[in-house]
């Protein structure tokens, strides 16, 4: 006990309330980018300080608060925050280092206790299976009333099932259910946000050096941040529901002002105002290319987009590989040609996400039974090198030409980077077998495709060894490989493959290297299938900017493709997204991707929700047999353009390319010969993009 007290005394920090004299306006780079809010737990919250400050070893102290306690040991990268009873919906954490400070918003926990209780017929064993458990069977407890599962949950939409003596059933006591996208249903438990009682903040008016924000309801307090510092009270005047913010003087470049407010029911939405050279940005055209909020992303599969260089075509010569899964000749030079021809500029695209261009094997792997075929690495996701470009896709010269020409058109280039695994022919696997996880679990079974139960170690296939990122030396080496691309090419970011299968250490180390070694904005977006809690756990100022929002996409697909799916499902999913990721998130809102049945093929009914989407593409030719599907796809695109985040168009979705699942969703891009419906859709998508990017002053409706 004595030791604990001694420890606490050492760790508890002294107040720095009156440290104004220590703070001056001298610019010191304690942090880079905007510090994201910390989502607190109900009890102790442990944060990694390097998520918010570049050099945690330089931290001197923290400002003490009446509303929380801090536990920290000098020189350490972790801080524990212990909220007290009177912790407000938004608090501030101030970190001092070398006579300067940065601030971090803290969000009070919004979790509530929830008990899922099984009330059905008597059973020997009941288990709980849900998004919450990563769709793994979780043990339930028993009391006199029967089986129950207790947890803490944020507001949101939670799908679940009971597994009663091995059989999955809906909750007999809950009439709410939602389609699972595979022909069945899951029970739905919803915790609503307190939106009726908390105010909505809206930017109202602006002048040269100030702006005003209005709250829709009374609020208790507002916290206004300029970059990563709370603004002086003299620059923020509150008059009833009006908040008047004076912009700091003598600013150059792009900076941001953020507002968070709260009343007794909870926090408001976040407000983000970009300021360039000290003035509020009112015109999207004034935003620089790499302002990532203005991105209209386009995901293209390099091999399937455009063949710009016939000389590098080198499909695998083997009868065991069907043409659908062989190299088709698309390459970086083809993308350069599309840039030159103004394809993306004309459509309004300003960020290109290229499928992996890393060197892939020259042989075929994998196996499909009906029809029998092996697969080539045409998709790029089987790297045999982490720093070489596959010659079938191009070379360093063509990538440099692409980035240069894209930048001339104010278009960003982001690369799809595969870090989770390599192909077994990768020299690394031969040289350092100890850098990889075992293909076998301790019980002797194979650890493949165990996406959730062995998330960090599972192999995608027997020829794709998973890198063991629990070893920091491995993290250092592999993040250096990723940095190679940023240092040698003027690319603007990464789409990170298989994000949730890689340890957090990797993301933090890579982001720290980017912040300290690369002097330009870098956008990082991850790929994680899972609950919003899991997805968000990779997003903060020390890791990724965003991830693809597959939960929102699933709801959008169901609602826009199916006649009977109520719009409330999409509304609930959107509210959940805004709650979990904020109103100024950089999540990717997709029209489709390389792993999903094309939306239009669901919408037209040519692929059924309850069939094997991959097999459908092998068994029959998928066309658009119901032309109302084009309008449904337009609705999906309109929805993505209207909501916060980064709209992301999968190549071909601008005109309605059909396709079942992989590989049928990866057909060659069609530039010419579009039918009347395809031409019309493409025109509408172009208008929707223009609407998102430009400021229309006059009353206008998107023409039908």
């Amino acid at each position, binding site marked *: 006990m004595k030791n604990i007290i001694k420890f606490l005394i050492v760790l508890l920090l002294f107040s720095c309330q009156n440290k104004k004299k220590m703070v001056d306006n001298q610019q010191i780079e304690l942090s880079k980018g905007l510090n994201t809010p910390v989502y607190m737990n109900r009890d102790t919250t442990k944060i990694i300080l390097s998520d918010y400050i570049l050099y945690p070893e330089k931290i001197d102290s923290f400002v003490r608060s009446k509303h929380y306690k801090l536990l920290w040991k000098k020189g350490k990268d972790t801080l524990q925050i212990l909220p007290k009873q009177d912790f407000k919906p938004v608090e501030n954490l101030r970190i001092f280092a070398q006579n300067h400070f940065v601030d971090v918003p803290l969000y009070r926990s919004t979790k509530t206790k929830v008990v899922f209780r099984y009330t059905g017929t008597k059973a020997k064993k009941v288990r709980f299976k849900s998004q919450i458990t990563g769709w793994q069977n979780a043990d339930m407890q028993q009391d006199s009333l029967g089986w129950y599962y207790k947890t803490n949950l944020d507001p949101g939409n939670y799908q679940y099932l009971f597994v009663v003596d091995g059989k999955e059933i809906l909750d007999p006591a809950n009439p709410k259910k939602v389609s699972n996208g595979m022909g069945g249903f899951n029970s739905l438990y919803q915790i609503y946000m307190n939106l009726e009682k908390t105010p909505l903040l809206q930017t109202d008016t602006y002048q040269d050096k100030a702006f005003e924000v209005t709250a829709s309801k009374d609020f208790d307090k507002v916290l206004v941040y300029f970059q990563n510092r709370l603004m002086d009270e003299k620059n923020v005047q509150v008059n009833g529901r009006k908040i008047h913010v004076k912009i700091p003087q003598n600013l150059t470049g792009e900076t941001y002002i953020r507002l968070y407010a709260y009343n007794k029911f909870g926090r408001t*939405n976040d407000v*983000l105002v970009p300021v360039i050279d000290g003035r509020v940005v009112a015109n999207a055209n004034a935003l620089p290319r790499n302002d990532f909020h203005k991105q209209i992303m386009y995901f293209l599969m390099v091999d399937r987009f455009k063949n710009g260089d016939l000389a590098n075509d080198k499909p695998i010569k083997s009868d065991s590989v069907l043409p659908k899964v062989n190299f088709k000749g698309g390459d970086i030079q083809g993308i350069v040609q599309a840039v030159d021809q103004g394809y993306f500029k004309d459509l309004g695209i300003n960020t290109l996400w290229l499928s992996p261009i890393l060197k892939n094997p020259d042989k075929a792997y994998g196996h499909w039974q009906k029809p029998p075929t092996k697969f080539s690495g045409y998709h790029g996701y089987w790297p045999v090198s982490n720093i070489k470009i596959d010659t079938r896709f191009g070379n360093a010269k063509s990538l440099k030409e692409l980035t240069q020409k894209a930048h001339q058109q104010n278009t960003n280039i982001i690369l799809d980077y595969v870090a989770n695994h390599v192909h077994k022919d990768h020299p690394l696997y031969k040289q350092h077998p100890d850098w990889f996880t075992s293909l076998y679990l301790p019980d002797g079974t194979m650890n493949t495709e165990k996406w959730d139960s062995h998330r960090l170690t599972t192999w995608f296939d027997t020829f794709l060894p998973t890198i063991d990122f629990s070893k920091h030396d491995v993290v250092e080496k592999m993040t250096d490989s990723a940095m190679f691309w940023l240092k040698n090419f003027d690319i603007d970011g990464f789409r990170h493959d298989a994000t949730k299968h890689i340890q957090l250490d990797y993301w933090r180390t890579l982001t720290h290297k980017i912040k300290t070694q690369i002097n330009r904005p870098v956008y990082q977006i991850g790929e994680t299938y899972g609950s919003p809690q899991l997805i968000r756990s990779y997003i903060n100022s020390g890791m990724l900017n965003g991830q693809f929002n597959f939960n929102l996409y699933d709801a959008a697909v169901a609602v826009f493709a199916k006649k009977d799916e109520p719009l409330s499902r*999409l509304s609930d999913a959107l509210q959940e997204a*805004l709650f979990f990721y904020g109103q100024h998130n950089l999540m990717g809102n997709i029209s489709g991707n390389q792993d999903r049945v094309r939306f239009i093929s669901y919408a037209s009914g040519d692929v059924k929700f309850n069939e094997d989407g991959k097999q459908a593409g092998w068994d029959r030719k998928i066309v658009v047999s119901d032309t109302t599907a084009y*309008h449904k796809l337009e*609705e999906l695109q*309109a*929805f993505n353009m*209207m909501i916060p985040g980064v709209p992301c168009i999968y190549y071909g979705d601008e005109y309605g390319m059909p396709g079942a699942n992989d590989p049928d969703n990866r057909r060659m891009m069609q530039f010419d010969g579009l039918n009347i419906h395809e031409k019309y859709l493409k025109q509408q998508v172009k208008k929707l993009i223009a609407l998102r990017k430009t400021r229309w002053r006059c009353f206008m409706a998107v023409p*039908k």
Partner: protein
Amino acid sequence: MALLYGSTKVEMKENVLIIKRRYFQDSITAIFNKSDKEIKYNGQVIKAFDYKIITRPSRFLKPTRSQKIEK
């Protein structure tokens, strides 16, 4: 700018989803109508199973203005 930096308000009424974005002078409203009837929203007709996007200067979209959906 409303679609890039605007605040977002989401409303759901009788299978009609309304998304309002606002950033200073710019206001944009999207109405997705999944009901099987035509609706009117601020004088605009939105057909059944259709959507419409309305942009206008914010003075026409003050929160005080009644914006009910007419069936």
